[in-house]
């Protein structure tokens, strides 16, 4: 109660030097509530029109359960793969110079900028049995398009920038004097890397992996073409929502969406914690 009281008092009596507090915060809250918060709250209200049993049946239907395995499992795998390659790419872009580096650096953000549908059809065509890459993988007996492997590739594609762009600025910011100090104290290159360089890079690395994971779990456009969408084989959870919607089973769609929302909130919470952990290494 007390904190609520002081909260209210704050907005009432605090004089502000810079004008526009009421207007800007008021508009921010109004817009956010209207566009994001109230509609999202609708998910939980709508699912309450189902009984607990119905909800449970919907969200644990074998097809749905399998889609969790695909969505969460492959997202985790993709974000870990991105963690590894993203770290290497960030390292190379910060520490080495080679021809074409600037262009590559600029291209890192392509998966952000490229519409997901475009990514979807492109990857699908590339890895289809007749595609540029798919035909060679075919010879090796690997089928990519229309299999979970294809989903994994799409998720790696869209997750590429996250780790690079979280690790890169921290790596750039690291004082090379610290490394020189470590070497002058007798550490070799590997010791320097693991004991001096790595610790401040772990929080941004984890943050990047978590961001990539969050994006991958909800991804729809780039996956849906390459996935093949075969029940119990290559269906992702967002697709389960779409399928329920197409059958006008709004409540059921909402129940599955609720599960995804809870997971999203949890990831968001993790990311926030990671970021505040990470900020202790940064200046000011």
């Amino acid at each position, binding site marked *: 109660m007390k904190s609520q009281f002081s909260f209210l008092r704050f907005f009432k009596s605090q004089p502000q030097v*810079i004008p526009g*507090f009421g207007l*800007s915060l008021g508009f921010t809250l109004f817009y956010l509530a209207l566009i994001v918060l109230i509609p999202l709250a609708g998910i939980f209200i709508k699912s309450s029109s189902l009984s607990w049993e119905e909800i449970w049946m919907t969200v644990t239907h074998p097809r749905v359960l399998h889609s969790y395995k695909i969505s969460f499992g492959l997202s985790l795998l993709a974000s870990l793969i991105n963690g590894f390659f993203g770290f290497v790419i960030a390292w190379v872009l910060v520490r080495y110079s080679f021809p074409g580096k600037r262009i590559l650096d600029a291209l890192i953000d392509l998966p952000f*900028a490229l519409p*997901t549908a*475009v990514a*979807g059809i492109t990857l699908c065509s590339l890895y289809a049995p007749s595609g540029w890459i798919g035909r060679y993988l075919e010879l090796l007996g690997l089928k990519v398009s229309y299999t979970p492997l294809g989903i994994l590739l799409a998720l790696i594609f869209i997750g590429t920038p996250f780790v690079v762009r979280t690790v890169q600025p921290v790596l750039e910011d690291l004082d090379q004097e610290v490394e020189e100090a470590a070497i002058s104290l007798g550490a070799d290159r590997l010791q320097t890397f693991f004991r001096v360089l790595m610790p401040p890079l772990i929080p941004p690395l984890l943050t990047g992996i978590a961001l990539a994971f969050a994006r991958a779990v*909800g991804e729809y*456009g780039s996956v849906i073409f390459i996935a093949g969408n075969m029940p119990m084989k290559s269906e992702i959870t967002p697709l389960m929502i779409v399928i329920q919607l197409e059958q006008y089973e709004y409540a059921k769609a909402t129940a599955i969406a609720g599960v995804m929302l809870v997971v999203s909130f949890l990831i968001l919470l993790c990311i926030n914690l990671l970021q505040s952990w990470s900020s202790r290494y940064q200046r000011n």
Partner: protein
Amino acid sequence: MAGIVSRLKGHRASGSMALKEPKWVKRLLIGVTVSFLFIFLILPLAMVFISAFSEGISVYYASITESAALSAIRLTFFATMIAVPLNLIFGLAAAWSITKFEFPGKQILITLIDLPFAVSPVIGGLIYILIFGSQGWFGNSLRDHGIQIVFAAPGVVLGTIFVTVPFIARELIPLMQAQGKDQELAAITLGASGWQVFWRVTLPKIKWGLLYGVILCNGRAMGEFGAVSVLSGHIRGQTNTIPLHIEILYNEYHTTAAFAMASLLTFLALVTLGIKTYIESKAADEMNEEIS
């Protein structure tokens, strides 16, 4: 989405000899990077354009000028024209309130602004169906008045707004936080009003970050698929955006036409990246100065 601020520090020279890895390590790492980026970024990029022109210029031109394509382009522009300005105003208001004032719950607000990033775009579409759809809260009253939101252009606009809410705010908040508020306070002691401070002092300081946010927001708005796909009725020539039109073409095996449309969006993406790189290099010194 690495913001401009985090990318400002600039590249340092490659350090002293003592900090060098053995040559083979360096070559291996560069090799891994280049091959990964080649396979995952450059090859798909090349694929889009080569497929788009695989049947010649005239087929390409016909694909992007047939009436369904033109109507998709029109709707995409329409939705973007509404979503970007609204989110621009939102971004400015949010960044102003968060960076110029202290209030309880600020961190929660910042997290909530990010919410549309964390939520699947499919859910972003679903929520508006729950509200405005035929079984939704306002479904009946809307139908009585002959207003259709879901499976029509307004739904497409709403979905586009939802997924692009955070873009500009996220660029501006860290930037304005780093810039501090001394200049605004100085302007106020010199007698400037709130709007004068905003237009004459703050806006010129944040113009690059703002432009960057607008470009990102624009790119996403034009390319959004998941949310729009759920909300659009997929009515060809009426409620299709460019990405939805691509989907239909692709699924109907009009591969060349699909890639022709895709090449438009890919071109837009490349322009976005180009402008972004330009802004970064141009703004870096200026903003470093501002922050230090």
